[in-house]
């Protein structure tokens, strides 16, 4: 009898341990890896000389000072430097090579401007139009491609060529320039397929006349569709800034998310897999775009863009433009002030950039599917713009419900095996200092990887529910398993 009991006990223990090990196998934490950094650019890079608020030129930076400034750029987590304010139209070879050398030495990439190359590309349309037939046009185009290569050779053959990312071509073109840019882009791609033909598009709040470039009015969808049909780049970039203040009250731009939504819809419908870049705000400018006052101001913008599946951000601005650029006033509080000293903004943006880079091992292994909203009050008004969006998801196979004490939303992602991940964002104006409890209800999950503000942890999911405490500006990437 004792023997039988001992055998039964052994069998039970064996079966129990088998079940336990099977359970352990089913809740194994997913592992993701990526060494790639998120693409983080900027506007108004390191200048070759100091200038004051009136734009008056001061001393030229020594080579060591210039290089030190590039070390600051790299330390801020920026991966692609842009030209200085007075070099955005044309860096001339002296500035461009200096910038490439510095970028090379600190291990980042560089976008430069060269008016000779731009003029050659911009002239291509007219040169092709006067050709008699297709054969002559093809010969002419091949000729311009070779001329472009010859101009580019100075940079592409240099010892710092590994730092060269691309060329500044045009900021905020109207549709009246698209054809010219389309031809220029095609030629550039033939001459330098690995370099970026950099153009940045208008935001959704631009006026119809701005979008058309003056010849009549076009709406934003027409503007974007025409760009997509005419200019064959592997990315699309635009600028749209969300944080406002009149000095007393704080508000947010109502179409901040809507612009992201329109862009994602465009690239999804097009199906060419273009990357989407945007600009985020890091300087006080104009009558209402406010200065950053905390890391939360920076991370809020970046996390929101992450949640909308964005591929690259650019900070507007890194250095300060002069006090007035002809249309807009600029304060002296970008990441670097006009004396080229770090400001508080530098710390805020660097922190946010570090948070973003820390997400890359996960983010890089997932594909964006859409967004889930938790509309509590829509105090910012952003969610109302998304009513008709095709990117809205109410629930998924894994995420049954998202609710929160304040406005929040989550980007929904899937990895190659169909596992879901979510970028959850406290979507309240960071200036209002609102904390947010976000509750996620899953179909089935016992644990979750949560990456928040640069820190990864594994948390237990009780009763298929996960509760996240998100402070102002917080976002968390969540992978339930």
């Amino acid at each position: 009898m004792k023997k039988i009991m001992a055998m039964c006990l052994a069998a039970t223990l064996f079966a129990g341990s088998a079940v336990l090990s099977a359970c352990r196998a089913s809740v194994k934490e997913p592992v993701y890896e990526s060494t790639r950094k998120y693409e983080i650019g900027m506007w108004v890079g390191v200048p070759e000389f100091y200038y004051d608020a009136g734009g008056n030129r001061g001393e030229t930076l020594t080579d060591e000072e210039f290089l030190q400034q590039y070390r600051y750029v790299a330390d801020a987590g920026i991966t692609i430097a842009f030209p200085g304010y007075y070099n955005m139209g044309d860096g001339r070879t002296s500035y461009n090579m200096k910038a490439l050398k510095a970028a090379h030495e600190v291990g980042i990439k560089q976008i430069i401007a060269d008016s000779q190359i731009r003029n050659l590309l911009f002239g291509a349309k007219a040169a092709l139009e006067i050709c008699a037939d297709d054969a002559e046009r093809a010969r002419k185009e091949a000729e311009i491609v070779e001329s472009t290569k010859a101009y580019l050779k100075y940079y592409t053959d240099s010892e710092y060529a590994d730092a060269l990312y691309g060329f500044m071509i045009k900021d905020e073109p109207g549709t009246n320039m698209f054809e010219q840019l389309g031809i220029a882009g095609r030629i550039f791609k033939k001459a330098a397929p690995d370099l970026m033909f950099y153009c940045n598009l208008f935001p959704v709040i631009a006026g119809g006349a701005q979008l058309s470039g003056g010849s009549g009015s076009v709406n934003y969808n027409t503007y974007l569709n025409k760009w997509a049909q005419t200019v064959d780049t592997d990315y699309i970039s635009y600028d749209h800034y969300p944080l406002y203040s009149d000095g007393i009250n704080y508000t947010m731009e109502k179409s901040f998310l809507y612009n992201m939504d329109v862009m994602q819809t465009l690239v999804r419908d097009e199906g060419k897999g273009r990357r989407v870049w945007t600009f985020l705000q890091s300087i006080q400018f104009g009558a209402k775009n406010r200065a950053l006052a905390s890391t939360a101001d920076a991370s809020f913008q970046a996390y929101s863009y992450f949640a909308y599946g964005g591929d690259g951000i650019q900070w507007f601005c890194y250095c300060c433009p002069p006090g007035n650029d002809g249309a807009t006033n600029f304060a002296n509080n970008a990441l670097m002030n006009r004396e080229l000293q770090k400001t508080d903004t530098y710390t805020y943006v660097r922190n946010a950039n570090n948070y973003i880079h820390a997400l890359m091992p996960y983010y890089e292994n997932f594909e964006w599917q859409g967004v889930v909203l938790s509309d509590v009050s829509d105090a910012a008004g952003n969610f109302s713009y998304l009513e008709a969006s095709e990117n809205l998801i109410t629930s998924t196979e894994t995420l049954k419900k998202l609710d929160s004490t304040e406005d929040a939303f989550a980007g929904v992602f899937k990895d190659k095996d169909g596992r879901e991940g979510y970028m959850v964002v406290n979507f309240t104006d960071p200036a209002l200092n609102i904390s947010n409890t976000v509750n996620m209800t899953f179909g089935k999950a016992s644990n979750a990887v949560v990456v928040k503000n640069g820190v990864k942890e594994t948390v237990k999911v009780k009763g298929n529910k996960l509760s996240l405490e998100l402070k102002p500006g917080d976002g968390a990437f969540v992978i339930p398993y």
Partner: protein
Amino acid sequence: MKKLLKLFSVALTVCIFALAVLSVTGCGKNKPSSDIEDLYPGVTFNEKNGEMYKDTKEEKTRIKISYSTGQGNAWIRRMAYDFLIDEEGADYYFVLDGDSELTSAVSSKLEAGVGLSEIYMPLASGWNAYASLGYLENLNDLYSMTVPGESVTVGEKIRGSWTDYGKAVVQGSLDYYIFPWNEHITGIVYNKTMFDTYGWAIPETTDDLLDLCNKIVTDTKGRIAPFVYPGTISGGYWDFLGTNWWAQVAGTERMDEFMKFESAEKSFSYMKETDLSYGKLVMLEEFERIIVKNREKFILKGSGSKTHLTAQLSFAQGQAAMIPTGSWVENESFGDMEDEAAMMPTPVIKNETLKDENGNYIRVNYSGQPDYIFIPSGIKEEGKEGAKKFLAFMCKDEELVRYTNVSGAPRPFDYDIGKCETSAFIQSCINVWKDSTTWFEKSTSKLWTANKCRKFNSNSPYTYLLANPDTATAIGWCANELASVQRSWPQWLEQVGE
């Protein structure tokens, strides 16, 4: 065990009490307050969601109004209330949606095309593109509607530049697409209490203004700055002084001639008295003489980083005696101001040729580009009809008077402004308005509607002169502007297809 039970019963009682309190306060949260009920007897108004209706909103047509909040909220609530208790409004209810960011948000709202309001009231901004994109309802029938209870049409009551400002060419036809909202009054607002205390006289001329500024510095030993201005805004509101001077020198007819932008040389030459930008040069030289050269002692330190609200706050706190601004400032910033403020007639540039046939100086009120109203085309027909009825109702004599009483702003319609009972500050603004010709920039030139050519080009002259006091001059700025416009002109023409 008894102790435990007792503790449990106490806790339960506390919970029930707390729930009861919560339920009472919670229920009360959305109810209209008694103050609101007193203000709008006979209708239900929910301040939180902006809904206002008489009896019920069931089976009634919604009129949702999205409006910029610079004039506060009281005026629109009052207009809506008056409409609802009138038989005109029997079939409607309102949703009043105040939005401080409406002006910049409206283009993307129209673009998105979802959740549109029946009426939009943004501040001055480029609206021609909205019309040409088909976003705006044709308002010809509103302009030709008879004002309820009166014998004139809405269009017949509109005065000044607004008689044709609301027209745009859409698909080859010239029609009305926007409707007049406010007419602003701009110039120098001063601290009247301070002026009375120190015995400072209102300056008649720009020479007097210079003397006054020096006197303010002397009398207050530099404690009070003559001026504060919002430096974060391009131009720093100095244009509310500058264009008043320019229009005084040029006259409104020549200002309109300038705005035709027929050629770079015709509009932007400045050397001869007959040149259309000559008045601009004279104005900038006055600005340079009075403000730029004396900026250290005449301007409050830190003005360069002030927004319009923080600059107005500094003025309201008595840190400066004067501020270039407009009639809206009382609603925006004078809530807690202890001193009395008033608007002075813009000091004139002393010159015998600038007098009219009666020997009086020509006075102009530069109102800035005007705030306007439109109805989006993408809403239901019954909503459009209600919106038009309401806008026509707002044109009744008593409603126009009431509007000015409550908002503090005149509207560009024929009505007896003398009947208005406004604050002393608004009365001072209205006095300036009555004694001058109102002008604002408007043009049918494609270069202007396409945002290529502006009143000032290349940069704001005020900001530029203040930022470069040792190197820049008024005449240099005008020369640079002319050269820059001449360079850009052929490209602009090409871009707009001319």
